């Protein structure tokens, strides 16, 4: 029997559920339900959700539960996004939902939400490999605007701006009150807010422009007759019409109960970013969080390799950030590669957390980014920069862990005194030490940052960690540093590393 999965998404404007059947490598949609419920408006104005709104949400979820029972769903995941993140009473709401419906709803952070959403490109975009070769993804949501760029099969940029439809709507209303031709002014505002990333996009080989996010469906049906692909010419023509005289269009849109300002926000943001690339068409993509959640559920149950490249996006992104901070990339990549070898061997014998492998790799790639602004004593600068980075798929807590591991790695002897570590939860300290010890060991083997050493084999033999290596030139500096750092590894694991050259 094939498996039945369900994904529920409590968004700002609607609650959605998708139920699919998976089998024979095929995903078959059984239900795709969307019920409008304005959670965002209440949250963004009042900061909390009132009882009647919570009851409405519960009513919808109870119905979803019934529909799920129709198919005997095997596994589900219910998530809430930005609106619930900003709700003061979110925890009590989630408890109530659990009590009344049995659903355990988790609140997703923005970066994780997007990471999961982009995973759905694998199943929703037929030529996803082509998309990954060079494309710009522009996503406008209630609270934010997100710009992502794929180049050569890697996610190389993901920037979020607090520039969602709600903000732009308010701005439009205010400017409209004083200026008849208000839309160009709003576009000017968008440019001002986002222009610092323009140089990262211009002149890149962008072959595809994808519009994604909550407003895409309306844009598609209201402005482009349901087409999923529109030419640049058509988009420009529409933009010119809107700028010159949009009265007729506006009344048509508003007659259908669609928010004119939110629709215009989508058009203006896209017009701004389209001007940076040379693509001849825009794809209005319906990738969404539910499909991403389902992809993850399937991936877990079937141990699939299908989404591997998307899982690596956070590594690509960290690499790209490290590059932007002028990090010594060969060194960072060398540490990443070799620490991973050591980690995987250790993992065969020691317990690690599911996400430790990612934290380890990100720490390896990012530990030196503090040097970009402060060479001397860059430890704390790296810590604070890494902690504040927003990387697709990583939660804030995970980024704090990455930052802490970096701290340990940079300064294995002094880190205990560092006040930044006081912020780390006690139960996470052992985890940080374990990862830090591996990275410190790997780092020592490239002390000269010239990648002289090649690790040939790593194995736990008779209680020692045997590191078989070959050095292409004199490795005295590495050997010296290795001797300094191995103590930390021994203290952490109780295992003696044994470096042997061939």
């Amino acid at each position: 029997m094939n498996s039945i999965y369900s994904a529920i998404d409590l968004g700002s404007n609607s609650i959605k559920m998708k139920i699919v059947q998976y089998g024979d490598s095929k995903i078959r949609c059984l239900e795709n339900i969307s019920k409008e419920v304005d959670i965002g408006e209440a949250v963004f104005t009042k900061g909390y959700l009132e009882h009647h709104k919570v009851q409405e949400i519960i009513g919808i979820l109870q119905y979803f539960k019934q529909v799920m029972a129709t198919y005997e769903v095997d596994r589900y995941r219910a998530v809430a996004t930005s609106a619930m993140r900003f709700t003061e009473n979110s925890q009590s709401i989630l408890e109530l939902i659990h009590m009344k419906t049995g659903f355990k709803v988790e609140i997703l952070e923005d970066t994780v939400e997007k990471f999961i959403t982009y995973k759905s490109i694998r199943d929703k975009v037929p030529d996803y490999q082509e998309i990954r070769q060079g494309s710009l993804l522009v996503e406008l949501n209630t609270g934010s605007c997100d710009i992502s760029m794929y180049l050569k099969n890697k996610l190389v940029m993901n920037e979020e701006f607090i520039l969602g439809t709600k903000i732009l709507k308010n701005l439009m209303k205010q400017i409209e009150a004083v200026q008849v031709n208000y839309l160009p002014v709003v576009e000017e505002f968008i440019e001002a807010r986002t222009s610092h990333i323009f140089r990262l996009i211009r002149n890149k080989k962008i072959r595809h422009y994808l519009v994604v996010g909550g407003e895409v469906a309306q844009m598609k049906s209201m402005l482009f007759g349901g087409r999923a692909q529109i030419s640049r010419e058509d988009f420009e023509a529409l933009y010119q019409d809107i700028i010159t005289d949009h009265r007729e269009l506006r009344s048509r849109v508003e007659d259908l109960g669609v928010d004119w300002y939110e629709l215009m926000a989508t058009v203006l943001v896209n017009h701004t970013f389209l001007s940076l690339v040379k693509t001849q068409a825009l794809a209005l993509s319906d990738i969404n969080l539910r499909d991403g959640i389902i992809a993850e559920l399937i991936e877990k149950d079937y141990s699939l390799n299908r989404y591997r490249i998307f899982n690596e996006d956070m590594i690509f992104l960290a690499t790209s950030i490290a590059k932007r901070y002028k990090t010594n990339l060969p060194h960072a990549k060398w540490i990443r590669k070799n620490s991973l070898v050591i980690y995987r061997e250790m993992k065969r014998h020691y317990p690690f957390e599911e996400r430790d492998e990612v934290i380890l790799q990100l720490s390896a790639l990012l530990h030196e980014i503090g040097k970009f602004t402060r060479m001397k004593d860059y430890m704390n600068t790296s810590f604070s920069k890494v902690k504040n980075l927003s990387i697709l798929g990583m939660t804030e807590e995970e980024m704090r862990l990455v930052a802490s591991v970096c701290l340990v790695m940079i300064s294995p002897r002094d880190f205990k005194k560092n006040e930044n570590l006081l912020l780390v939860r006690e139960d996470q300290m052992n985890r940080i030490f374990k990862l830090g010890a591996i990275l410190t060991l790997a780092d020592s083997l490239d002390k000269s940052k010239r990648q002289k050493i090649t690790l040939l084999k790593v194995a736990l033999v008779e209680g020692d960690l045997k590191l078989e290596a070959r050095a292409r030139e004199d490795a005295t500096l590495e050997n010296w540093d290795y001797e300094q750092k191995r103590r930390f590894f021994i203290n952490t694991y109780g295992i003696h590393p044994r470096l042997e050259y061939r």
Partner: protein
Amino acid sequence: MTEQFFNRELSWLSFNERVLMEGRDRSLPLLERLKFSGIFSNNLDEFFMVRVGSIKEQIRAGYSEKDSSGDHPETVYQKIVDKVKALILLQEAITGECLMDLADQGVEICGCSEKSMDFQAQFHQFFNAQIYPVLTPMAVDFSRPFPHISGKALYIAAKIRVGDKPQLAILQVPQILSRMVPFKRENKTCYVLLENIILSHLDQLFPGYGVESAGIFRITRNADMELIQDVAEDLLMVIEEAVKKRKWGEVIRLEVKAGMDPWILEVLQSALSVKDNEIYRISGMMALTHWLSFDPPIGKTALARPRYKPRKLPYMVKGNIFKLIKEGDIFVHHPYESFDLVVDLVKKASEDPKVLAIKQTLYRVSGDSPIIKALEGAVERGKQVTVLVELMARFDEENNISWAKRLEKKGVNVIYGLVGYKTHSKITLIVRKEMKDIRRYVHLATGNYNNSTAKLYTDMGYFTCKEHYGSDASQFFNMISGFSNEVKTHLLTVAPYHLREKFYGLIQREIDLAKAGKKARIVAKMNALVDDGMVEKLYEASRAGVGIQLIIRGICTLVPGVKGQSEHIEVKSIIGEFLEHSRIYYFENGGRGEIYLSSADWMTRNLNRRIELLFPVEDRMVLKRIRLILDLYLKDNVKSWTLGSDGTYRKLPLKDDKQVWAHEILKNLDYRDNESFIANLKERM
């Protein structure tokens, strides 16, 4: 009328006239002819309760706009009164003819003036034993309010002398007793009307008072319910209330026996607030609906039409219905083919351990519905059962409320649809967990899930388990449950969201094809055509040269055959043994014909204010078969009436000897499956 539109009310009366005229068809058994008279009366009652009630409301509210046909409400009302009076005379004449013929066949309807002692003894005995105990005479005087008079029930009003003053007494003719009471007379069966027996015993009912005169009367009340649904939190409660209120609706028609004592009439008229033009004087029998349930006396079965038994095709009785549907889409044409297959599907689904869920819309359901029982059984077996009950199915509200409550008690998920929209669509969705897959079985139909009417109404049903139908059906149920905003379907078109646009689009395609010199034609069969937009679109198509043939049972506001407007449009109406109820829409599409079936007529209410479904017939063989059925209807020259541009319906004289009687052909055609149906019907045509 204007050149553009016929008046819908007069068009409806014209339909009822065609029903009545069936009673003139001497080729039919006598009781069948009388049954049409009964149907006419029944229809007319509903017409008064709903349509006349609504027009009277407009007049009272001072609404003075002209309707599409160019008439003010007052004018329409007067035209209705005049037409109804003429039709009543026609009904009396036709019923009279039938009764005379019936007497020739040895079945008499007698009065109470029979002199024979034996006969009189039978009368008295029946009155004393059966009628007297259930009678409740009510005196009317100033000390008590005028008694409540129920709509559509027969009453006797008697003028009795109390002291030196006349006083009115009223008694209801008991509805629990048969209206036609059989008596034996010289080895013959003779029927006496119940009210006549009571009338002849009035002295016994008012002993000590002189009964000076008496007469029969009957009222009709306005039953056009107005619900403020937008604020209705509990629709069930609101409708229960409204149904109760209907019993107190304004009196809009008073039928009295011709020659009624003017004093009695005056008192009734004043007490019931009835205007002069609301009084209808009946010379013959009043309220002829009893002919609908009148069984022929023993030995006279030839007087009635033999009961038709719908056929079960060989494949319909084969084992597993799910397997059958998986092998290919199944089409059923009721009443020629049994409704049992539909009942079987729900029954089997309720018993099948693989079935996870059943979802169904229910509009009008028979009293002892096997479908309801099956749904209850399904819940007991742990299946998810969701039923949309339309509480506002006119005159079935009480019935629907009662079994909606019953289903709810059993644990069925009962939903009442979207506020402000009647759910008129007919659809069943069954979700089944098979070897590897979830498979959805769908039944779509033009008629209700009612095993009783399925024997009398012509309807079409379609069973399929194709993915797109199943996915659309799921979406549809989410939408009508009120928990989904999206109505993005693959094959099904849903009113009020996209149905009008879909029809406009399909007609426009024919217009474009005609203009391009390609094959363009529309054949549409429905119950009524009452929508200015649709009519105008059809005129546009006619002007573009699209040939349009409409088979419309009832109201048609379109004016056919007008040069420069509708010269390519023909309208016919088929009235016969079965009530034409299927809605079929055929579009030539340049030679790649498409057929759609629907729960919707081309009426404004169907397109704008109801949840309706339109679905394409994808199976080519079924498509061919339905196309052929449409051809047969178009060729029918026995039960067909053609609408002229003057608004009158005429039966066309037979041009050659070949009679084409669609109902009879479909009843008797010998076939085993779609293929043999097509082959054999072609031969018969």
